[in-house]
């Protein structure tokens, strides 16, 4: 059962950011609790390197803190802005990284021995993330934002600075490529039973 959120955590993003800028840094804690985990998830799925992903999130949040005094209400959703900064930072890192070997798949954070089904699930997620890493960067970004982060196409279009149709095309092509990449491992990973 989710923990009850205190009143601070219920406030809108922009209110919290204004409160932080106004000298109430407790608001930063609420913003971090709300956004840092999702940004980390996104960056990790883009970069597949925890240290780099944490650096990206740290830099994105740092820019938010610096932007706080000048943040203009109503011009951009804070979450969209953060995703966009993180996406651009990931792109920069991926471009600097080329050409180079794919980074190793990160092991699941919890390596406690579990039931077989649990291990199979971890294997399936690792296989999905490995397949994602083989997609062209823009397709990967669109698929991750749409299907793993759960964002709507119009918001992804803003983050990626393209039209909604382009987002739809990128996700469709990305999913086709993913299906092809994962097809060969269907039996091995128990996809039929997942």
């Amino acid at each position: 059962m989710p923990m009850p959120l205190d009143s601070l955590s219920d406030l809108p993003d922009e209110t919290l950011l204004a409160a932080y800028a106004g000298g109430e840094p407790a608001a930063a804690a609420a913003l971090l609790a709300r956004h840092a985990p999702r940004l980390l998830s996104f960056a990790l799925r883009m970069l597949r390197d925890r240290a780099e992903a944490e650096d990206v999130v740290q830099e994105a949040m740092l820019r938010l803190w610096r932007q706080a005094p000048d943040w203009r209400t109503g011009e951009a959703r804070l979450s969209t802005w953060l995703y966009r900064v993180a996406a651009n930072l990931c792109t920069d890192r991926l471009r600097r990284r080329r050409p180079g070997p794919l980074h190793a798949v990160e092991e699941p954070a919890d390596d406690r021995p579990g039931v077989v089904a649990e291990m199979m699930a971890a294997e399936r997620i690792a296989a999905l993330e490995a397949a994602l890493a083989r997609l062209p960067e823009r397709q990967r970004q669109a698929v991750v934002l749409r299907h793993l982060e759960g964002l709507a196409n119009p918001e992804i279009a803003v983050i990626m600075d393209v039209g909604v149709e382009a987002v739809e095309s990128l996700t469709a092509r990305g999913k086709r490529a993913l299906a092809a990449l994962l097809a060969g491992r269907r039996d091995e990973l128990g996809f039929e039973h997942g």
Partner: protein
Amino acid sequence: MAERDEDELERRFAEARTRPPAVDAAFLARLMADAARVSAEAGGAPMPRDPLPQGRAPSSVGVGAARDPLPQGGGAGSVSGPRLPSRPPVARRRGAGARLWAGLGGWPGVSGLLAATVAGLWIGFALPESVRGLAAPAGSEETLDLLAAADGYFEDS
């Protein structure tokens, strides 16, 4: 794409969504430290509480800002542009939030609180499947002896 592939991919996505990466408490503490540092650098002067008027020149622009639909400096290579005239510093406001902040022990106290809160939220929202294997089967009863070494002190002589 075949319907079967589509369904299968959706199941994989759904599975991955339920198991987001763990968030490290030390990492959260670093993020909190950044927020504290930037706040301190700002000198503690209250920032504008009212939204800036629409159409006002951006105070921070990104590289290639002309095509940037986000007017808040969201580009990866964004740099700080000319700052808006700063408002005269005034005494830091001591509102209810500030008193709460002080009561929680300031940054060090809240960093720990945040780490625990986020970890709790994360576990509560995202990881029930991963702890299922730890739950005792219904009807069974197991005990955990936390002070096994001290048993001898409590035995009847």
